[in-house]
């Protein structure tokens, strides 16, 4: 039985790759070919769909917008969550447990509930259709998650580390950035991965809060359905390109994932 153990992950990975392959397959076909013929690979191989995306600014700006607010959000979430997670992992203070649960409740809030009030709220403070609006709104679910994950990693670091540093004459700031942050680097990597992931894939809020200037790529894609029937080839090419940033991020954090997951709560 042990000999065939590799079969399970292999079959699972094939199952995962099939729809992705089908999307890539479609992206190299013309829309006419997609609609009229069924084939496992492109009969008339074309890169026209990709050329269109890279030459039309309404298309490629969608990627720039998505990446911009995702990076903003990751930086804000992790920067705000670091001190908070430290407080939760090291100190007892008035209302700490309630605050922690309150934070988590925001991770549980269905975005559909918040879509309309967010639209009105960000319009009223003149932030509608900006990258920062989307980045801030994604903090709603990313900050609680970041605090939760970081707190797990920080609690795994023995408190003696802090105490020794103070005995050695480190100030809090120097200790935190010179010793503590490098110690939990793997945890920060994992946290950034999750923040990036949830901000990159979210669409409902990103779409509600933008019109043209900060429109995410995923929202641009809905255009293919409305203008001239279904441009399936173009849709598939745009979809394929949204997979790439994620793949790059995974490649960079792959060592952190294995190591980082193992040491913390996550």
């Amino acid at each position, binding site marked *: 039985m042990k000999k065939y153990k590799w*079969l399970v992950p292999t079959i699972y990975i094939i199952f995962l790759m*099939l729809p992705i392959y089908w999307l890539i397959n479609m992206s190299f076909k013309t829309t006419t070919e997609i609609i009229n013929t069924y084939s496992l690979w492109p009969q008339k191989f074309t890169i026209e769909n990709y050329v269109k995306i890279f030459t039309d600014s309404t298309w490629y700006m969608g990627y720039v917008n998505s990446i911009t607010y995702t990076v903003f959000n990751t930086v804000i979430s992790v920067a705000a969550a670091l001190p*908070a997670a430290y407080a939760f992992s090291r100190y007892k203070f008035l209302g700490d447990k309630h605050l922690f649960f309150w934070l988590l409740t925001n991770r549980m809030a269905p975005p559909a509930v918040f879509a*309309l009030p967010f639209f*009105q709220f960000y319009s009223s403070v003149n932030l509608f259709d900006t990258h920062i609006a989307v980045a*801030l709104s994604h903090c709603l679910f990313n900050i609680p998650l970041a605090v939760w994950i970081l707190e797990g990693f920080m609690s795994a670091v023995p408190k003696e580390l802090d105490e020794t540093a103070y005995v050695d004459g480190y100030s809090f700031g120097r200790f935190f950035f010179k010793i503590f942050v490098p110690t939990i680097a793997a945890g920060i990597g994992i946290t950034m991965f999750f923040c990036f992931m949830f901000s990159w894939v979210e669409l409902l809020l990103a779409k509600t809060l933008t019109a043209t200037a900060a429109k995410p790529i995923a929202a641009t894609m809905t255009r293919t359905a409305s203008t001239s029937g279904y441009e399936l080839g173009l849709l598939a090419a745009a*979809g394929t390109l949204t997979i790439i940033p*994620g793949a790059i991020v995974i490649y960079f954090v*792959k060592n952190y994932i*294995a190591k980082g997951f193992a040491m913390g709560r996550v």
Partner: protein
Amino acid sequence: MNKTINQKAWYFVIPVFVLVAFNAAIPLMTVVNYSFQETFGNNVFAWEGTRWFKQILLSDRFHAALGRQFAFTFIILLIQIPLGIGIALTMPKKGWGVPVCLILMSMPLLIPWNVVGAMWNIFALPDIGFLGHTLNSVGFDYNFTQQPGDAWFTTILMDVWHWTSLVVLLSYAGLNSIQPAYYQAAEIDGASRWAIFRYIELPKMKKVLTLAILLRFMDSFMIYTEPFVLTGGGPGNTTAFLSIDLVKMALGQFDLGPAAAMSLIYFFIVLLVCWVFYSLMMKNEARS
């Protein structure tokens, strides 16, 4: 860990508190505000008391959406959790297979949700999609845009495709944290494969599995984009889960009052389930 009491720790929490309160409290108040009023447009409102709440709680439409939502969440948890554990157990522990598995398995997690929906749409279309075409050519009468059963099957398969990897990654991390000494001891005692799983691996995975179940419950209960793009809630209303129904009401029909009341009831149900779960988790942690 024994924590010291320090009220100044609040200063550390202020940035998080302000950012989240800014995002959560103000919009939530708007929702509460709408839920008790009737709007006539142009910022004219009339007090309605609890009428919308009664209307929603007694409506067949809400009961149906809630029923579909619980059924969906229950089915995907029942599939994803055991499947995720199974795959994590059979994954390689070292060598070149580890990064390959991790990278390929994480891929679905990082695809924008509407792309997941669109991808499964063209994958499952009966005439030009691989899944639809294959199923039809081996004799199944499969069409997810027409038949409710097929629509459910496709939605569940899509969610399994999309999220099982999260359970795999978490379980794998839990398994990795087990010291080799445990396995050696089990071998000396002549423990069966099942006994190793039941008494060593499962207890060690308890924490990450709780997290996996909690995350999967919350996210599947809020699911919107993927089924919206895949089936649009159809055929009819058969795959209109809570969020889809809610957005239809709020942005489609602009029934702000009932939609706001439904939002609050919806949020309350999620909170209640998570609170019960969280308390059990904390109790468990305190005991061990």
